[in-house]
C-alpha cells in the first residue's frame, strides 16, 4: 500500500520530539479521527531553524510529519506558509488516496505553529 520512501520515512523518522520552550507550537487533528499532529518550531529572525513533531497517527502521518519538518528547516516563515501538502506528498512520491488527509495535517500543523509564533510576537 505504501511506497518504499514512505516506509523509510516512517521507520526512521527525523525530528521526532518536542522543542523546549518553542517559538511556535501547532497541534491539529484529534484522537477521535485517529490523527493528532503537534509541531514545535524554533524561529530566529523569521527563519525556521529547528522543527520537531509528535504524532498520534498512521504511517502516513508519521512520514509526512518527518518530511514536512525536514522541509521547513531553513525556510523563512513566508516560505513555510506556502508549503502545501501537495509538495510534501511529492517529496514522498505518493500516498494512497485514503491517506491524503494525513498530509493535510502536516501542512495545517506548520501553519498553526507559525501563527502561534506570529501572535506571540505581535503581543
Amino acid at each position: 500500500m505504501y511506497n518504499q520512501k514512505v516506509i523509510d520515512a516512517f521507520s526512521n523518522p527525523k525530528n521526532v520530539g518536542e522543542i523546549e520552550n518553542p517559538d511556535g507550537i501547532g497541534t491539529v487533528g484529534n484522537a477521535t479521527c485517529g490523527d493528532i499532529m503537534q509541531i514545535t518550531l524554533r524561529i530566529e529572525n523569521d527563519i525556521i531553524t529547528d522543527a520537531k513533531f509528535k504524532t498520534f497517527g498512521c504511517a502516513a502521518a508519521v512520514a509526512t510529519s518527518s518530511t514536512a519538518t525536514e522541509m521547513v528547516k531553513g525556510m523563512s516563515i513566508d516560505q513555510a506558509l506556502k508549503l502545501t501538502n501537495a509538495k510534501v506528498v511529492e517529496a514522498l512520491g505518493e500516498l494512497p488516496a485514503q491517506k491524503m488527509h494525513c498530509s493535510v495535517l502536516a501542512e495545517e500543523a506548520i501553519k498553526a505553529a507559525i501563527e502561534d509564533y506570529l501572535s506571540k510576537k505581535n503581543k
Partner: protein
Amino acid sequence: MDKREVYLDNSATTKLDEDVLEAMMPYFTEYYGNSLSQYGFSRKCAQAVDDARYSVAKAIDCKPVEVYFTSCGSEANSWAVRGGALSGRKRGSHVILSKIEHPSIMNSGKWLTQNGFDVTYLDVDKYGMVHEDELRKAIREDTVLISIMLANNEIGTIQNIPALAAIAHANGIVFHTDCVQAMGLIDVNVKKLGVDMLTISAHKFYGPKGVGVLYVRSGLIIDRLINGGGQERGMRGGTTNTPLIVGMGVAIEKAVTETDTNAAKITLMRDRMIERIKNEIPDVILNGHPRQRLPSNVNFAFNYIEGESILMRLDLEGIAVSSGSACSSGSLEPSHVLLATGLPVERAHGSIRFSIGKHNTMEDIDYTVDKLKVIIAQLREMSPLYKPQDRVKEV
C-alpha cells in the same frame, strides 16, 4: 535475535493445508465435469460433492440435505439474514442482530432497513457479551429473525448461543449464528447450539478460500440469494465448484479431528502472550472477555498510539497482525466492535489483534512480544498524547 516471519493473522485467513490441496488437485484438470451432469464422466464429481456434504454434515451434526455450499462466509451470512428475513415477511418485518456482528451481517441489516425492515442491534457489555435480558427485551410480536455470532472475529468473545437460541425459539423466531471464527477452535454443533441456520467458511480452518456453508434446518425455507439452475437443490445457483467443495470437506474433517489438540496448543500461546503483554507493556487494555474467549485471539489497546503505526512497525520486523478487523482494513473507521464494548475512539484506534494458528510456535509469540515492547515504547515517544506523568498517575 534473528528476524522471523511470524503470521499472527489467522483470523483473517489461514494457510491452505497441503493435504487439503492434494485432495482438491484431481478435480481441477482431471475430474473437471459438471457434478450435476448425467453422464459417467461426472459421476466421480457428484460422488466427491456428496462425500464433502456428508463430511460437513457429520462435523456440525446435521443431515447432508441441510448443508448448502456457498462461495464464502459473507455470502452465507448475507443469504441467511436477507433470505431469512424476506421469507418471514408475511409474519413480520423486525430483525435482531448484535452490535458486534461481522460486516457481512451488519450490512445485510442495513440492506433490510432499506427494504422495509426494522432492525434492532443489541448492545454488548464491556467484554463483548450479549445479555439474555437484552435479547428478551428486544423481541417483538413481529420479530422474524435473530442473528448472533458464536465467536467474534475481532475480540474473540464467545456468546452463550444455546441460551440465546432458546429464547428465540420460545418466541417462535428463527435463529442464525455466524460460526466462521469458531469452527476448528471450539465445538460447532447445530444440535447443541440449537440453531436454525449456521455459517462457516473453509479458509478460516486451513481450507481453500471461496467456499462456505450455510446450514439450514430442514423444514425451514429461506429466500434465495444467488438465483440459478438446479444446483444445491435449487437453492443456490452456479456450476458446482467441485474442487473447492472437496477442499471444504477434507478441511472440516481435519478441523474436527484436530480441534482439541490445536485448541490446547493455541490456548497456551494465547495465554502466554496475554500474560507477557500485560506484565511487560504498561498502559494496555485487553479487549474482549478474559475467559469466554477464542483460543486464538489476543487483542490489546495500546494507549496513546495508533494501530496502523504499530502494525507497520511489526510488519518491518516480519510480523503480520491486524488492526481492528482485517475485513475493513484500509478503512479509517474505528472498529465498530471495540466501540460497542465501550472503548473510547482513540483507544479503539490503538488496538491490535494477534490471531494465533496451528502453525505458530511459542518462539513466534516471544519474538513478537519482544519486538512489540520496543515498538510501543518508541511510538509512544512520538505521541503528543503520551506524557510520562500520566503513566505514573495511571499505574
